[in-house]
């Protein structure tokens, strides 16, 4: 199957938004989405973007059952390791179910790696849900290792009321 991998543009936000919802539905948490297409446009395509995107696109004659030619995406941004320096974090990686098994996911990830290396990064980080066996298998095949399992690092979050209280110095 013919497909191209390219940098996302403002015009892609409609499809990115659609696919974000599809990915959230797959992870069974679509009611948690607060970000709109407009937010994506502002946060990703202004002077100081908070993320970057890449899109996988197929020609018209290979379009999806619903008529989409943008069939996969990845969102990433640059982070920093106090041990090793520049790093790239892959926040989302998604390929529509009817386009899987054709190397699109691998190509998206390869592009993020290329961009990361070009920016001087020495590692790519991301998180995976422990029940997502097909993704875990895919990533292990690419040479990834589980930092949580091997080093015991847990992802923590402070948000909402807890964040507000923390800001006010309440304990």
């Amino acid at each position, binding site marked *: 199957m013919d497909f191209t991998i390219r940098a996302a543009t403002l015009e892609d936000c409609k499809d*990115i938004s659609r696919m*974000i919802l599809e990915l959230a539905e797959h992870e069974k948490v679509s009611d948690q*989405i*607060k*970000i709109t297409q407009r*937010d*994506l446009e502002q*946060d990703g395509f202004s002077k100081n973007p*908070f*993320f970057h995107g890449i899109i996988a696109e197929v020609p018209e004659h290979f379009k999806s059952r619903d008529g989409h030619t943008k069939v996969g995406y990845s*969102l990433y*941004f*640059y*982070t*920093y*390791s*106090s*041990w*090793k*320096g520049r790093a790239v*974090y892959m*926040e989302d990686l998604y390929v529509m179910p009817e386009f899987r098994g054709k190397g699109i996911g*691998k190509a998206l990830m*390869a*592009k993020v*790696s*290329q961009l990361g*290396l070009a920016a001087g990064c020495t590692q*790519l*980080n*991301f*998180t*995976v*849900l*422990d029940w997502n066996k097909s993704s875990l298998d895919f990533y292990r095949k*690419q*040479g*990834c*290792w*589980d*930092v*949580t399992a091997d*080093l*015991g*690092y*847990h*992802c*923590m*979050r*402070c*948000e*909402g009321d*807890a*964040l*507000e*209280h*923390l*800001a006010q*110095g309440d*304990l």
Partner: protein
Amino acid sequence: MDKFILRKAEPKDVSDILRLIKELAKFEEMEEQVVLTEKELLEDGFGDHPFYHCVVAEVPKDKQSLEGYTVVGFAMYYFTYDPWIGKLLYLEDFYVMKEFRGYGMGSEILKMLSETAVKTRCSGMHFIVAEWNTTSIEFYKRRGASDLSHEEGWRLYEIDKCNLLKMSSK
């Protein structure tokens, strides 16, 4: 010890920042993993597009550490993005030298970071903690942090440079 200030790190602080990074890594038994240099810290934190931000805790000269340091704590952070909820503040490192603990420096640093997160309209603050580090876990849980690995099953994965090169050439 009521006299300490918190301020934004400046280029002159990179030597102290690296020293404190190494002290924290030593505590995590990962000291040999720190390959970052002062030059990289300078380029990456104080250029046109900083990869990180840093705040430092400083004491007056008469309160300096046993080895003569006045920069005695720091926090390194940057902004990340969750496509469901938007901007987040990610706390990469957070450390106060042992001899200066118990005076509220850690709490003040965390308070300053949370204010920054709220002011910049972040939906939350994320960070990682080693599961054996029960003192830190308690410190964070007291302040309302939740363990996403435990509660939602998120596992942190990494691909190192060697495998990145392999993947990018496919």
